[in-house]
């Protein structure tokens, strides 16, 4: 089995697995990046959302072979040694979660949104997140957190 090279959170990594293996299991089990959540494994709940070459996608439905050479961003990329991405900090500041299982996927969808749109409206945020399921009912806080993070991102030098 040849190694598949993927770029995860800025690092070039090689994994020796069947190319049909869903990216989800490679991230979580081979690379130890447990922040990407395993949810329905059917592409419906969106909790495993990661960003692949700038586009948010569910890691449970993407075979690792198809992302060879592409840049994959996971929720761990939002944590920094000096500073976190404002999205992460704002989720904590707003206490925008209860069980928290949906948050990692939502954070990545929101990051993809903020990466391409500096000043999203509430409707932009709601519609971007609409496919993401949250069972605890933290939606309103999550929307507030994303709005706040967008403001913070705009204020950054």
């Amino acid at each position: 089995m040849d190694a598949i090279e993927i770029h995860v959170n800025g690092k070039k990594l090689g994994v020796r697995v069947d190319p049909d293996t869903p990216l989800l299991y490679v991230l979580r089990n081979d690379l130890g990046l447990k922040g990407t959540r395993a949810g329905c494994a059917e592409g419906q709940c969106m909790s495993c959302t990661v960003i692949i070459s700038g586009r948010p996608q569910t890691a449970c439905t993407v075979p690792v072979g198809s992302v060879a050479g592409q840049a994959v961003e996971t929720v761990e990329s939002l944590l920094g040694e000096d500073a976190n991405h404002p999205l992460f900090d704002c989720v904590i500041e707003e206490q925008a979660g209860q069980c928290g299982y949906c948050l990692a996927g939502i954070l990545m969808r929101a990051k993809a949104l903020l990466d391409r749109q500096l000043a999203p409206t509430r409707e932009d945020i709601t519609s971007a997140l609409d496919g993401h399921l949250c069972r605890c009912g933290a939606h309103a806080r999550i929307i507030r957190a994303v709005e706040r993070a967008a403001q913070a991102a705009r204020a950054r030098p």
Partner: protein
Amino acid sequence: MTTIASSPSLTQNPCCSDWIELSREGVVVLKSGKVEIGQGIATALVQIAADELDVAPAQVELVSGHTARGPLEAGTSSSLSIETGGRAVRLAASAVRAILLAEAAKLLQAPVEALSVAQGSIMNSGRETDLTYWSLATTVDLSAAVLEHARPKAPAERRLTGTSMPRIDLAAKAAGAGFIHDLELPGMLHGRTLDPPASGRRLECFDEAALKHAFPNVQIVRDGSFVGVIAEREDIAVRAIARAARLAGWSGGFEVRQVMRNAIAADSSAVEFVAGRGDFESAHGRRITTEIERPYLSHASIAPSCAIARWEGDALEIHSHSQAVHDMRAPLATAFGIDADKIVIIHVPGAGTYGHSGQDDAAYEAALLARAVPGRPVRVLWSRAADFSLAPLGPGAVVKAEAKVDSEGRITALSIQSQSQAHVSRSGRGGTINLVAAERLAVPMAKGAPPDVPLERGGGADRNGMPFYAVPNIHVSKRILRDLPYRTSALRALGGYANIFAIETLMDDIAAATGADPIALRLAHLDDPRAAAVISKAAEMAGWPGSQGQGEGLGLGFCQYKNRSAYCAVVARVVCDERVRLTHAWAVVDAGEAINPDGLMNQIEGGIVQSASWTLKERVTFEGDAVTTRDWEAYPILRFSEVPEIKVSLIVRPELPALGVGEAATGPTAAAIGNAVHRALGLRVRTLPITRDAILAAAEQAQGTTGTTGA
């Protein structure tokens, strides 16, 4: 000395050392049987302990839901974790502080009143001393009884409780390995189990040889109709079980009457009297009746059930996200024929589950698989379909609510009859085993029929069946249906969801029939000022009565959860066009002392959204005995574009006991939505969920008959 209100949690765990350990310098180990399920209890318990001990929250290390380390508390349910678990922690922490300060006073030859504590260091008249909790702990006996030494702080002395300390666990859950799903034990293997189409089915044929041929490195475990696979890699286990599903044929299953009302009418179970006063039948007045139906509901946790089990000889260690780790040991001991003290269960948080879903089943199945690989931990993760179709469901219910109303518009009598399957069927309650895989073994284990929760413990089908209103004649009864085949157990608020919906629907129907304002009618029948206060304030926040008709309206729902926990009033605003849209919800809550006000509000906000989701969208459907809502497309829940604007206001009473809030908004929200739809359209939808189709059906019915009937 004033008497201190105890906590049921102290009965089995009376010693300070059952709750607190000071064996590591600088660290307070706090032990609790109540577990974190997303409701913020871990943070609240740390706040309480740090407050009573005068240490920093960061110095408190919480061990919760660990059967070997204790304390043995009842499961995390019924919104009791603050009321009983939090109370026990407060008393225990205060007792530890009192014992250690008494010892310090002796050593320093100072009056105890002169001593204070800063981060666990003892101060004498504000000056530092050499003494700390940890140095003193080596000489005092912390096995002393909590109740003999407890001296909890007066409300005015508390610094941490009453503040909105951020959750201690949220960061790891947002972007770390915060869940049992993320736990990777050394040498861990991955298991998956084969899902039958429904819980009672038998495996008729299974080509094990073909599976072995296709996956030579996968271990296959079979016991009767139970099949599982174990693999080094999770993705291989997933593929192997998918192949196994194609190699399996199932038999069994049966027809079930589809319409719940008919099924309930045909059930032979007896009606039991629950509670009451006066005499409903002989009370005078015009009779007003409503009968509501709630469907079976799924817990629909975002993450499927997960567990990790490991056998070492006849000792079993399980990591589980069960809400009742202590209760699980006895049934597992019976199932495996070992002593309960050979089993250690350690709670690790999962995604929110809101009751008894598949957590315990996953633990059992992990233990079944792990037996094949002694010494190695085996992680089982259920499929999404299993979580929807094999885990217990929140039971469907029919509730009939009747009133008699005199010529002045006074309610003279109320009668409530709740009918449903049992609301709690956890293994271990009443010596029963309720593990779905146990029915599939070659020698199946008999499933017990657990009793519904008695009213002293908050009630099951009859939870909140007792109307809170000051009415002289009340009759409450229930019928627990035994003949239906569905697997049911606890889902948030149990019978309180349907009962509050029924009672509060009836109140609005009475108001409509007598020309009264729904708020005024309620206030005229309440003698508890705390109840009146939450209702009045919610009405004020919402701008009651608001605009009414033309597809727009406000509606109110109220309860005191379990008639003894938090008071909660919710006003909903709906706009009915192509569908019912819940645009706003205002809630007022009185939970006495608020340990963490923001956490409390978060629970109410979430309770509103989840109840709105049930009330507007959710229904489990069946084909015979098999659940057909097996994925998120078949079982949609409220989405970001559908959540309302929510405003929550707290009435905080620091001098009064802290009351549980986790389930307080569930019933009132449903009732508020139903009543808002009624005021918006003049139509009463009595069959949940309130979908467009349900409204059309109600409109059709209204053309044939009137909503209320005369005496």
